[in-house]
């Protein structure tokens, strides 16, 4: 029997019930932190208390049976509490220093990698992709897994020039807000949706569809009680399909993956910045997306070996310039890389400020 209106709208449980004792006791009293080793840091409170946080990766989609195993470990080492980070890593907060290595042993047995702290590759933000979504051009979780497998050592070490944020979204909706990542992998369609007049006329709100298209590519087709799509104006964003099943956009032959680099969100040093297009298209090659993994790896390795300390991907590129980025990574610069949308003119290089190496 459903709840009454009064019983609805109650919100989340109180965080005070959720916090481990040590954190509750030291709430707001922390005074500094230290990175002890990759995946483990220590926070010290003005009360003299310390806690150790072990950070582990996880697959994001988890079986409930696994959740119970996580609970077992949290009961044993973490005062019966467990947390996830804003990037979905698991944080194991351990009051007793001696427990740290024991816990790590057990996590390893569970298959959870330790790391993702400090100047490491952090956990990969990813959407649901082909696991559960109707709009993807690619499978974010599958790509994330393939990239993780190849780059796992960067997750486990923390000797990169700075932190490395990688993110993957299956389509332009960019669930996860991947557009400000050091490296973003984004599924892209490359053909306009195909219009199924019957479905459109039955299932879709035509005015909403027309209004939703950013490039005004959708026109009414009153005869068919449907719409037409101007193939010259459509840039394959898929928004119309999000709201109407009658315009399927998925296309096995042309869908694929784009790569973006140099974004960040922190206000630290250079401030927030968008990721920029590095590769407009790579093919969809499940189950392991070798072309995508290779490009991501090449970018990471180039940055890792060339950036100076504290230089995030975008900060490194700012210093050396985009032409050098394309040079050093061997990626091709094409007409697709030059913005031609609303704010494009502000991204052109003004004046005649050309680095010597860019003239060659």
């Amino acid at each position, binding site marked *: 029997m459903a709840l009454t209106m009064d019983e609805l709208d109650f919100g989340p449980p109180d965080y005070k019930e959720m916090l481990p004792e040590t954190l509750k006791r030291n709430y707001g009293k922390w005074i500094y932190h230290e990175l002890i080793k990759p995946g483990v840091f220590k926070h010290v409170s003005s009360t003299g208390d310390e806690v150790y946080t072990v950070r582990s990766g996880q697959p994001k989609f988890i079986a409930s049976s696994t959740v119970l195993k996580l609970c077992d470990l949290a009961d044993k080492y973490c005062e019966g509490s467990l947390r996830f980070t804003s990037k979905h890593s698991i944080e194991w907060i351990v009051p007793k220093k001696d427990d740290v290595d024991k816990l790590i042993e057990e996590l390893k047995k569970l298959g959870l990698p330790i790391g993702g702290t400090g100047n490491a590759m952090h956990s990969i933000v990813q959407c649901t992709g082909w696991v559960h979504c109707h709009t993807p051009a690619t499978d974010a979780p599958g790509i994330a897994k393939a990239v993780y497998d190849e780059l796992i050592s960067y997750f486990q070490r923390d000797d990169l020039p700075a932190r490395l944020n990688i993110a993957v979204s299956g389509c332009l909706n960019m669930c996860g807000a991947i557009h400000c990542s050091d490296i973003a992998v984004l599924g892209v369609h490359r053909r306009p949706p195909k219009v199924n007049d019957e479905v459109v006329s039955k299932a879709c709100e035509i005015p909403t569809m027309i209004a939703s298209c950013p490039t005004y590519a959708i026109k009414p087709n009153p005869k068919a009680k449907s719409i037409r799509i101007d193939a010259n104006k459509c840039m394959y964003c898929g928004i119309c399909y999000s709201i109407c099943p009658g315009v399927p956009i998925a296309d096995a032959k042309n869908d694929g993956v784009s790569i973006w680099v140099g974004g960040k969100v922190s206000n630290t040093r250079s401030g*927030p910045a968008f990721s920029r297009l590095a590769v407009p298209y790579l093919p969809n090659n499940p189950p392991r997306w070798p072309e995508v993994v290779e490009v991501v790896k090449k970018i990471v390795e180039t940055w890792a070996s060339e950036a100076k300390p504290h230089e995030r991907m975008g900060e490194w590129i700012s210093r050396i310039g985009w032409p050098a980025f394309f040079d050093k990574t061997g990626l091709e610069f094409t007409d697709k890389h030059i913005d031609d949308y609303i704010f494009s003119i502000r991204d052109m290089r003004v004046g005649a400020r050309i680095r010597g190496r860019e003239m060659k």
Partner: protein
Amino acid sequence: MSDTPLLDEAEKGPWPSLVTEIKKTGFKGLLKIYELAYEDKVTHWTHGGMVGYPGYDAGVIGRLSDRHDILRDCHTIRMIQPAAWFYSTKKLRKLVEIWNKYSYGLMNFHGATGDFQLIGIETDKIEPFFDEVSKEHWDIGGSAGDFRTASCCIGPARCEMALIDTLDIYQTLMSDEEILNDMHRPRFPYKFKVKIAGCPTDCIAGVARADLLVVGTWRDNIKINQEEVRKYAEKGVDIGLIASKCPGNAMQWDGEELKIDNDNCMRCMFCLQKMSKALRPGDDRGATLVMGGRARGRYGAFLGWVLMPFIKLEKPYEELKDLIYKLIDWWDENGRTKERIGETIYRLGAGKFLKETGLKPHPAMVQAPRNNPFWFYWPGEVEE
């Protein structure tokens, strides 16, 4: 031979595999639909229509497969996460127990907005499931044109940088009747996302995706423990290098003493993070409000911009809530369908937005004042 040869490949490698997890749940239908996508290189999920709990018009993502022979409905429930994603094992075990009753037990920790997500429930199981789980004080989150589930960083629970009580603000907003009403009964032009970061490090990535981002900050001076600074230097921290990257050009280090020009410090947090034992933010604390971030929109993505350089935040945060509704009300009146608030402001102009909300223009809102001479006068500002 395996039913899922391609996904089996995807299980290989050192990182824990979601395929393995799905297999553990025994959710064969979903696994097969997923395998088909790998085979065909297209998704096999389609629109699911409106499904949900009676009285709630949001929070459940309806989802059908296009192969009803294998699996038909497979919805997702977005559940409001606890502040900063802390779970007591007690509550988590109970949650698992209930979820297992109504599904295969597949869970998504977490969705990118913040909710924890429960994946794969059939239409008619939503009601009994929520009847039961609501008793454990787990509520459904947002979707569609509504107040979305907020999120906050770990803040004072374990971070020495925290300048506002992120968890408490989160808890207050997410327990507010009006907000929950606007979460569960969509009426806005589009989604509205609030995020709360304890300091300008923005570990919640709010600048990229929050319609309103609340960022802890301080107005007075950074506290310097020179002794500890020197210790960092001895341990090999290159303080000169850090100073050279200070975006406010506010740091001077002579090898002995560190000076910070607090008027020019941009609150970027870099030096504080690199020497947390030596440097502490000031005591006159409050928040910077950042407005209008969003991922790919109709004009491309927007990064959030400064709405107010500094406000004091005091429990029970009524002022903050009033401000949020001032923004929403203006947007609700002026926004088009599927237009986020930042886009409405962009389309109609910050001038109009400020005038109509009564908020004050401040030079810190802009990187630089306008460079074009195309502005308007309001009736009454000029002689007729």
